[in-house]
Structures are given as C-alpha cells and as structure tokens.
C-alpha cells in the first residue's frame, strides 16, 4: 500500500499506539515466582504476587535493566530519578486492589523509532511519549457456554514485568501502524528485551485513532478519539484501524460530532466479524488515584550505568541493515530481508558469506533455499540441519564448477533430508566429480562424433554447441553442462 492510496481518501487517519511487552526475565517483577508460560493455573504464585497481607515487593534488577535497554534503543531520555506508584482499581484479576506502575516520574520519556516502507511508500519517524515499567495482572476466564455464574481466576501472570511503550499520534495509516509494530518487535527481539510473542501474551497493542477532515473553509475537523482493544495480531491491528477509519468517517458524515464533544470511547475488535464494537463505558474508570508506593524505594540511574547498558546492546536493526549492505555489497533490499528475519539468520548469513568470501551468492542461497525451507517447515535456524560450514562448502563447489546450480540444489535437498555433508551426499548420489582432464577427453570425443556441429560453430553459429550437451550427459551424467559448452567452444576455436 502506498502513500498515494492514503491521500485519495478525504481525510487523514491519525494513529497512536500503546504497546505492552513482557520483559524476558526468569522471575516476576517483585517476587521470585517463575514467569514461564503455560504452567498449570495458580502454580506460580506466592504471598507477594497474591497480595497477601504483610508481604513486600522487591524489584527485579534484570527487569529494570531490560526496560532501560528498550528505552535507550528507542532514543528516550532516561530520568536520573524514578519512583513507583499505585494505580488503584478493583478487578478480580488484580489481587492487591492496585497495580504497581509509574505515573508522574516514569524512568524514560521522549524517544522515537523510525519505520521505512521497503517498497518506498513511506518513511515515518514516530515519537515515543514514554516507556515505563509496571506489573501485569492475572487472567480471568468466563465460560459463558457453561452457563455458570462464576469466573475463574489464574494469578500466574500477576506481577509479570511489563514495559509500556506509548507513542505520539504520529502514524498516518493502518499500513504504517503495522509496519511500525513489526519494526518495534524486531528491535525488542534483537535486544533480547522481549520475545514479543503475541499468542502467549508477551506483546499487546491498543490503538488510539481519529480522523482529520479538511473542510471547505480551510478548517480541519477532528473526529472523537476512539481507543481500540482486543487486537491479537499485527494483521488485526491493520484491519481494525482500516475498519475504524471508515466507520468514523461515516459517523462524522451522519453526526458531525467533533473531538471534545463526547467522552473518549473504547471499542473492541471482533476479528471473525471484522468490526469494532463499542464497549461498555466504565464510569469514572479514569480515576485511579495514583500515589507513590510506600513499599518500593526510588531508583536512581547514573551515566556509568547507562554506558554499561548501551555497551551491551549491539547494533539495532536499523543500523545493521546499512552495515550489512556495505560490508557484503548486497542490495539494501537484500539486507532488509535478512535483518528482518532476526539476529540468528544474520549470524548464519555472515558465517556463510565469510567462508565463501562473497555476500551476494550467500544472500541468494539464504533467501532462495534456506529461508524458503524454514518457512515451509516452520522451523528456526538454530535447528536447521544444514550448518553454515556445509552450505559454504556446497556454494564453493558450485562456484568452482564442480557441478551446476541445479545439481547444487539437489545436493542441498539431500543434505537437508539426511543431515550429511556435501562430500557424503555427492558420493551417495553417485555424483562423481568430473576432473578437467576427463572433461577435455569427453569433449574431444564429442567433437569427433559431430563434425556438422563443429562446422556450424566455426561458421559463426555458437548456439549449435547446445546440441552437444545432451550427448555429453548421456556419456557422463555428472558433467557440468556449462563447462562442457565452454570447453567444446575453446577446443573448436583452437582447431
């Protein structure tokens, strides 16, 4: 989708995102309970995360460091002094009756993350209002089909460390929102801050959206801001925003209601139906009566600490794309594809490219053969049967002309199936490597048997040599057709 498609609409879609990511720690934010996903209900709970009287929270150092990493990578200003606040509300999945979060002194603010459409449709630098650290709530389940009056509460998630990332309303289309989320996820996964697995709830997104509609008198009419929840994939985010923009435009045409005339509305995305639906407005729900949590002491951060965290971060994806393209002389597009596959794929690529001594050919094999296979099998690179040294060996032999690319592909498939080395596969498939002396002898034989072709070639019809390839394959199925052609032409020229 390009910018021109967006500008054909009679309005601008204005989008801001609020993202929660689970930090990759072993234990919860304030207690030693495990954060492992998928455990039996209420097996990862203790007096602290159950909010039992007399228990006291103590902050997880790793959680704070990971949050710092995320904020630094997003270009945020880090506060020298930060504290934790209680956000008070009653809900059965919140055992303490308050969530420990950050209110007026978040540990970081004022960052940005740029996203570029690889197809050239847009470049958008999205401002980050703030990144703060807070605890997650538990999970409540209500089985309406069972018709029971009870909801069931599992508190394994309660107290899991989350980073909340709030953007400025800088995004201008559903496509941009989706692309930006992909870039954010890539960055956080590169940093090891979060696995960003949406299925397991490690990443959740809410979106704020409204329309700016230019009026005949030059004024810009702004529709009321709607918050969209319940989007369970980046694709859902894109679809929900696209739906909501059209819905708001229709509503504006009918009511002319503008921003500030109605209370902020929350709508839930119904994925199967493909619509957003108004959610019941919780009365006074915004009155959280924040106050500093007396159970947690403030945290200070100094320059030395920030330098340490920075040093541990490595190159973010945006920088790595440029580095990779320059170092290996591959196109920005190829660098983008490789970097977007994650750090492990980049490491695999660099290992192969180093051994082969060339980036372009390594990138081609990776994209056409390795990545395609991984996609088909739904596997990750660390369990891939063809290791970098084996792939480099195969590419090197193809480059030397021991066999052609299509033969190379057959060997690759066999290496994949059997996990064996190039040499073993070559031997087992009965592919004897034809040495140069054998090849020349074979070509001489061919020329002797085909005086007409020789005459045609000498008469200037080089393409006549193609008639020799099939015969060569019959004599020895292991010959490389390109080499046969080249050798025959050289021999004819030398006649």
């Amino acid at each position, binding site marked *: 989708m390009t910018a021109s498609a967006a500008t054909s609409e009679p309005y601008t879609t204005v989008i801001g995102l*609020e993202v929660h990511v689970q930090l990759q720690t072993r234990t919860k934010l304030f207690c030693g309970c495990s954060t492992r996903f998928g455990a039996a209900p209420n097996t990862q709970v203790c007096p602290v995360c159950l909010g039992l009287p007399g228990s006291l929270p103590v902050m997880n*150092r790793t959680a704070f460091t990971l949050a710092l990493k995320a904020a630094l990578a997003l270009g945020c200003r880090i506060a020298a002094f930060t504290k934790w606040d209680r956000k008070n509300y009653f809900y059965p*999945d919140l055992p303490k009756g308050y969530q420990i979060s950050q209110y007026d002194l978040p540990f970081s603010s004022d960052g940005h993350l740029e996203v570029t459409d690889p197809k050239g449709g847009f470049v958008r630098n999205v401002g980050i209002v703030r990144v703060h650290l807070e605890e997650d709530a538990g999970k409540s389940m209500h089985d309406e089909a069972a018709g029971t009056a009870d909801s069931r509460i599992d508190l394994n998630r309660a107290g899991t460390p989350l980073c909340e990332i709030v953007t400025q309303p800088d995004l201008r289309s559903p496509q941009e929102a989706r692309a930006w989320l992909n870039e954010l996820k890539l960055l956080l996964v590169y940093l090891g801050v979060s696995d960003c697995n949406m299925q397991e709830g490690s990443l959740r997104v809410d979106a704020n959206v409204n329309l700016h509609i230019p009026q005949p008198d030059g004024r810009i009419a702004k529709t009321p801001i709607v918050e969209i929840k319940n989007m369970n994939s980046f694709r859902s985010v894109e679809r929900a925003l696209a739906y909501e923009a059209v819905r708001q435009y229709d509503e504006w045409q009918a009511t002319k209601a503008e921003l500030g005339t109605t209370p902020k509305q929350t709508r839930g995305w119904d994925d199967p139906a493909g619509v957003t639906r108004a959610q019941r407005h919780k009365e006074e*729900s915004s*009155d959280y009566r924040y106050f500093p949590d007396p159970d947690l002491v403030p945290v200070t951060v100094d320059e030395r600490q920030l330098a340490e965290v920075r040093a541990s971060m490595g190159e973010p994806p945006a920088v790595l794309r440029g580095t990779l393209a320059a170092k290996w002389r591959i196109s920005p597009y190829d660098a983008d594809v490789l970097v977007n596959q994650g750090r492990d794929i980049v490491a695999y690529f660099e290992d192969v490219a180093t051994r082969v001594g060339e980036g372009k050919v390594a990138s081609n094999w990776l994209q056409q053969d390795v990545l395609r296979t991984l996609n088909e099998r739904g596997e990750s690179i660390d369990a891939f049967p063809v290791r970098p040294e084996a792939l480099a060996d195969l590419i090197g032999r193809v480059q030397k002309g021991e066999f052609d690319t299509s033969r190379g592909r057959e060997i690759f498939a066999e290496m994949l199936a059997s996990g064996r080395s190039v040499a073993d596969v070559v031997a087992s498939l009965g592919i004897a490597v034809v040495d140069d002396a054998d090849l020349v002898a074979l070509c001489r034989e061919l020329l002797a048997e085909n005086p007409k072709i020789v005459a045609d070639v000498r008469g200037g019809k080089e393409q006549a040599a193609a008639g020799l390839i099939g015969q060569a394959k019959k004599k020895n199925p292991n010959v490389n057709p390109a080499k046969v052609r080249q050798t025959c032409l050289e021999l004819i020229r030398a006649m």
Partner: protein
Amino acid sequence: MTLARQDVAKVAMLARLELSDAELDTMTSELSKIVGFVSLLDELDTAAVPPLAHPLDTQNVFRDDEPAPSLTTAAALQSAPRHDGEFFLVPAVLGESGAA
C-alpha cells in the same frame, strides 16, 4: 474546609462502599473534619521543598532474577472464599479487564 456531599459519594463509589443517605451525611461531616485538620499543612510555604517520593532515605533496592519457591496451589487457594482446586472462583466477570 468542607467536603461536598457528592465528593464523598464519589470516593465511596471508587472504594465500592454502599452508603445510605444518613451514612453519607455522617461521612461528609467527619471526613470534612479530617481534611480540615490535614489542610493545616497548607499554611506552610513549601515552594522551596522538593517533593518527597519516599519517607526512607534509601534508593536502589533490587533482587537478582533468581527463581524462589512458589506456594503450592492448595496453599495459594486455601484462604479464598471459593475455589475449585485449580482456580479462584469469583462472581461472573464480564467485559474487559481494567489492567492497562
């Protein structure tokens, strides 16, 4: 210092307290006295005093990211008014969690 009756009603609602009209009258009068007492502090000039984030002069208390034993499910559930051996049971929760 006098609190408005509707302020007290709102605080009661936020605290999920159901007050009768008579109780609301009593609370309004009693809470007004408490707030009036605390508002003596307004007489102090605090312009040059930095806000206090915590009464203790301590900072940076952390623990390592090391797992510690959790409770057994039975122990976790034992004080709950109702449970099914696996989950806490509460009156039907419909709609969205307030967590944000």
